[in-house]
């Protein structure tokens, strides 16, 4: 009888002790992104290299075992990304998946990670839904989002006196939401939206749209589109002489690699918001030079963000002494992001990493001292002003 009691209480003790035992198994990180398509330059293998650098800088080991890194190309296909992410989480013991280009992929992996209490580290998905209705207690959104881009660019320019806007919008959800967010900010600041024209995705000929933009006589033309569409619009606006006749272009989503592709001649005077510029201070230059040596180009905000996010994640796991999601997330929120990217930024409860954003102007060919010397930072946008306030996001588990 007594033996039974002892056994039972020992068993109870064992069971209750179960969940609180720290999970100190080896840490494994996956980088899942587009490595062969549209976004291969701005994330791709560059992000993988950035992740590798983060692991090296952290020391390469955690809980006495080497930190493993795997990577895969999802070709911007949500079904392929979902297969790989599920296999990584379920079979390969991957703890965190980072990068996640393309919003369909980002949202899909966010769901998978939430269900399994694993970490989703978004550094390339632009959609602000990731910290809004699709937020997750184990999902973090690191580098930028559509709200910050629209908000930063519109606010600064209207304040500067560029108060009439016309939009060139890619005719799908991403373009519409950029146009809506930017337009709302323009009007809130006292500016006026004179009109908008929608163009199909992957458009080659912007002439008729640019004529309409010209005819609107707006001071600003907002490009609510991305990648090749933005580049084509910029090139053709240059040919039409829109800029030389006094209208200015604002790109709402553009990366430094895009500027490199299109050239300063066409892109000069363009205004855009970015989460990172390599030539901003001593620390960013030091890291970016290292990256440049390994990859042969300067990092985009996605690649720098991937480094920063993974390093912060590893530090948080170390500080928590366990991989238990709740404890790690608590540490991630408690610790400041004190590296060249975060600059003392912090992680909000809804998963948003709040850090300074930069409003930049693309230099004229004469001002640039060499390759990659493209931006002039015209304004540092404080994080709390740049990102959407938490109460407006609609993240379900956040109590307001």
């Amino acid at each position, binding site marked *: 009888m007594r033996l039974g009691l002892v056994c039972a209480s020992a068993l109870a003790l064992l069971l209750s002790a179960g969940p609180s035992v720290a999970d100190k198994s080896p840490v494994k990180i996956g980088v899942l992104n587009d*490595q*062969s398509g549209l976004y*291969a330059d701005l994330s*791709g*293998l560059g992000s993988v290299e950035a992740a590798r650098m983060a692991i090296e800088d952290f020391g390469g080991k955690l809980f006495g075992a080497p930190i493993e890194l*795997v*990577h*895969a*190309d*999802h*070709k*911007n*296909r*949500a*079904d*392929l990304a*979902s*297969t*790989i992410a*599920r*296999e990584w989480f*379920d*079979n390969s013991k991957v703890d965190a998946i980072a990068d996640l280009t*393309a*919003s*369909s992929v980002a*949202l*899909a992996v966010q*769901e998978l990670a939430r269900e399994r209490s694993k970490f989703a580290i978004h550094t390339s998905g632009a*959609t602000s*839904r990731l910290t809004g209705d*699709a937020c997750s207690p184990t999902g973090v959104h690191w580098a930028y989002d559509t709200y910050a881009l629209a908000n930063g660019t519109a606010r600064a320019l209207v304040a500067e006196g560029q108060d009439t806007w016309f939009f060139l919008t890619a*005719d*799908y*959800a*991403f373009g*519409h939401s950029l146009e809506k967010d930017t337009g709302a900010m323009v009007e809130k600041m006292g500016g006026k939206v004179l009109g908008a024209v929608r163009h*199909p*995705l992957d458009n080659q000929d912007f002439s008729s749209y640019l004529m309409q933009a010209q005819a609107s006589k707006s001071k600003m033309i907002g490009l609510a589109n991305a990648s090749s569409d933005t580049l084509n619009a910029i090139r053709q606006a240059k040919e039409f002489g829109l800029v030389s006749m006094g209208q200015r272009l604002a790109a709402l989503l553009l990366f430094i690699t895009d500027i490199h592709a299109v050239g300063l001649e066409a892109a000069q005077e363009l205004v855009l918001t970015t989460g990172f510029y390599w030539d901003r201070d001593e620390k960013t230059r030091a890291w970016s030079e290292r990256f440049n040596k390994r990859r042969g180009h300067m990092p985009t905000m996605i690649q720098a963000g991937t480094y920063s996010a993974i390093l912060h994640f590893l530090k948080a796991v170390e500080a928590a002494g366990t991989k238990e999601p709740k404890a790690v997330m608590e540490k991630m929120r408690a610790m400041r992001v004190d590296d060249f990217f975060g600059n003392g930024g912090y992680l909000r409860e809804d998963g948003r990493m709040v850090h300074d954003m930069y409003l930049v102007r693309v230099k004229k060919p004469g001002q640039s001292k060499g390759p990659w010397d493209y931006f002039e930072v015209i304004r540092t946008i404080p994080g709390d002003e740049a990102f959407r306030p938490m109460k407006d996001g609609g993240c379900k588990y956040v109590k307001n």
Partner: protein
Amino acid sequence: MAEREAYALRSEVSGWEARQGAERGRLIFAAIAVLALICAPFAVYPVFLMKVLCFALFACAFNLLLGYGGLLSFGHAAYYGTAAYIAAHTIKVWGLSPELGLLAGTLASALLGLVVGWLSIRRAGIYFAMITLAFAQMIYFFALQAPFTKGEDGIQAVPRGYLFGVIDLRPDLTLYYLILAIFLFGFYVVYRTIHSPFGLVLKAIRENEPRAISLGYRTERFKLATFVVSAALAGLAGAATVLVFQLASLTYVHWQTSGEVVIMTLLGGMGTILGPFVGAIVVVTLQTHLAAFGAWLNIILGAIFLACVLLFREGIVGIAQKRLKKLL
């Protein structure tokens, strides 16, 4: 005279025996294959297997049209994707149960197939391919624009739900057996269609349409019926994919998906019953397990496809069948 009769009888009997033997061999093979599929999830990751099965069904549906009907549709992603979107929307927003969602998706694709098929079978060859491609592009842009598809975000977090209200489909293993059942059903439909008088007429039309017309067959009806069956099964595959991945995205209606199913079918063996299945295994395996190679994967796939087209045009299964026959 009597000798000749006896000979004829003997050969008839042996022919019958051979057919019986082949039939028995086929049954044994089918039983082994099904058994292997039932055991497979214990050895291989079930989600991966489900993806293979969904694509295999899609390719089988496509093969029915191309391999047996001789009609090259270049826009089969339209049926696959339409069903996926309809299933995802009805399950997530309307709250339908999974089986009704599957049914709704399949019906929508069949209906779309009826309309597109009715218009496109009036032409043959490259014109037919172009018309189907044009319709597929229309569907793509519709999916890009329509509010219910959520544009490039896709319909996300579709619940797997409970089959018939009782069987919880959330565990991967349970869902695997549902997907396997769907695949076997689709495969059986294709098999029965091919091995029926209908299928024989279809082959006749493929080989020589004017002669089939001269024999009194209304060939356009046969072609349309095949088109609709193919579209419906492609739709079934698409709707099943939604249950597996819990999402419907633009990839499903993109022309690349149409191209991929052509590659699967040709690689595995056009006009063979098992070809599309083998082709789907090869392509999906390469895609998933060589994903770390990035852009190299496209080159590898391209090289394999080129080798297949240049060296063994009958595809993997086609060449295997030939070799086996030589051995026997």
